[in-house]
């Protein structure tokens, strides 16, 4: 699909928990070939002193209805403002951006690890990867039970496990403390992850050590999102790469982790 500046129509804005909202956007153009890891760069309208767009991963796509969904976590002024948008409002975004995760092969057993808003591309991937549910494990970490979002709609695509820092849901600790990660990692042929840098680094290093295919989705600060400003670079083994166009998905082996 060609990159376009699109005026989406906000169909729905649902609060999932304290800080997380799910936005459903209607596209005036057909949405096609959208895959997990890709993102959209959203204009934050009528906000004092917000100048640049804000990037958000695609959480889901409905090709027929021509809608896309976003998971927006309140982090600062822009994300806050976006969660205050009302259905009926238009939202300008540049779309689609970035490269997606490498879809698994039929024989793969995959582990998807999401933390914070990084859960969005993981859910999308669980749905779209085409594997039998028993070959898809989704591990989601959050601070506390109340920070976890409801993933019922995706439950049929794989086995879901949770961690919380306070033990209020699933295993206590970080995702990297979960038995799936500490004990059963060798059962997986591919690991995919998106979330806080420290989490992804811990996962990535383990994948490198254990020689498992691993792709991570980075969230470097962006100005443009389509490869012209060169602000979002990650220092890879082959030099500075743009997270917005060469990524956001990278194979950990290409990174200097």
């Amino acid at each position, binding site marked *: 699909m060609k990159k376009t500046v699109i005026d989406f129509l906000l169909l729905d804005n649902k609060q999932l928990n304290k800080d997380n909202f799910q936005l459903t956007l209607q596209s005036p153009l057909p949405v096609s070939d959208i895959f997990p890891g890709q993102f959209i760069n959203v204009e934050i309208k009528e906000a004092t002193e917000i*100048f640049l*767009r804000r990037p958000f991963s695609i959480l889901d796509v409905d090709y027929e209805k021509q809608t896309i969904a976003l998971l927006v976590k309140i982090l600062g002024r822009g994300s806050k403002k976006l969660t205050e948008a009302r259905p009926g409002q238009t939202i300008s975004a540049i779309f689609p951006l970035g490269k997606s995760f490498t879809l698994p092969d039929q024989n793969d057993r995959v582990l998807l690890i999401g933390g914070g808003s990084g859960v969005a591309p993981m859910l999308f991937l669980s749905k779209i990867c085409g594997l039998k549910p028993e070959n898809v494990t989704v591990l989601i970490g959050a601070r506390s039970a109340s920070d976890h979002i409801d993933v019922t709609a995706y439950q049929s695509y794989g086995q879901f496990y949770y961690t919380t820092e306070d033990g209020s849901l699933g295993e206590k600790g970080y995702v990297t403390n979960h038995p799936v990660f500490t004990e059963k990692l060798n059962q997986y042929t591919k690991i995919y992850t998106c979330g806080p840098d420290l989490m992804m680094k811990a996962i990535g290093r383990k994948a490198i050590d254990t020689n498992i295919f691993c792709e991570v989705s980075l969230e*470097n600060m962006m100005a443009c999102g*389509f490869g*012209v400003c060169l602000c979002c670079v990650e220092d890879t083994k082959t030099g500075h790469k743009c997270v917005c166009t060469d990524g956001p998905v990278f194979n950990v082996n290409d990174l200097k982790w």
Partner: protein
Amino acid sequence: MVNLGIKIHNLDLKNPVMTASGTCGFGEEIADFLDLSLLGGMVVKGTTLKHREGNAYPRMAETPSGMLNAVGLQNKGIDNFISNIYPRIKDLDTHIIVNVNGSTIEDYVALTERLNELDRIPAIELNISCPNVKEGGMAFGISCPSAEAVVKAVRKVYGKTLIVKLSPNVTSIAEIAKAVEGQGADSVSLINTLLGMAVNAETRKPVLSTITGGLSGPAIKPIALRMVWQVYNAVKIPVIGMGGIMNATDALEFMIAGASAIQVGTALFIDPTIPVKIIDGISEYMERHKIQSVNEIIGSLQC
């Protein structure tokens, strides 16, 4: 029909709207959004003799009505440009201008000589104003003697249109403009970014890996307009204006203050289709004000 054509030295532009160096890549990155052939010109990413990795991440900070960048001229070098990029973009129906950077005068000259060979590059923009590199860059652009020296050397080897891009980080930009005009520059473009800084109060660290960076966007527009007006009144060569242009009204303000053409930079990050909107907006303005040729607007400020 209004006439949007303007001239920069002996270069005919179909309209006064160009895209600024470092904000439009090599054109290909924005071709999805923008029919490049509609542009008056396109100044491609700052190019150096050798491949440069640029500065470390983070390179960007959002600021009130603007942003700081510290990219540091990341580019694959002139060889890569000539063998890989040039063949792909050379037949675009717009003027492709290369932004030329060096750490030494010899660099600038060597780079210019290479570009001189390229039929479809009718002009270069000599960047003596990059605030994000340790050597050369802005250092050349902030004193008259060094600006003169680099322009003089480049002028000797370059027969096509020579545009010199000026730094706003000076006491008198008009003096620098006069100095480079004196050495045979065919045009000056301004402004490059203003040196700025961002601090993270929580971590007590600079936001940018390089501590300081270049400020661009609407925040700097009043300064850019003032400098364009000062330079317009100081030199006879055409002035290319930029700095915070977001729409046709901004573009017209620069032209009224003396710019023969304008460049759109940071605005592209927010909406890469803005150049076309500006071109249309200028036409609409001219029709409304019954102005036949866009040349009548240039420097029309009534003080």
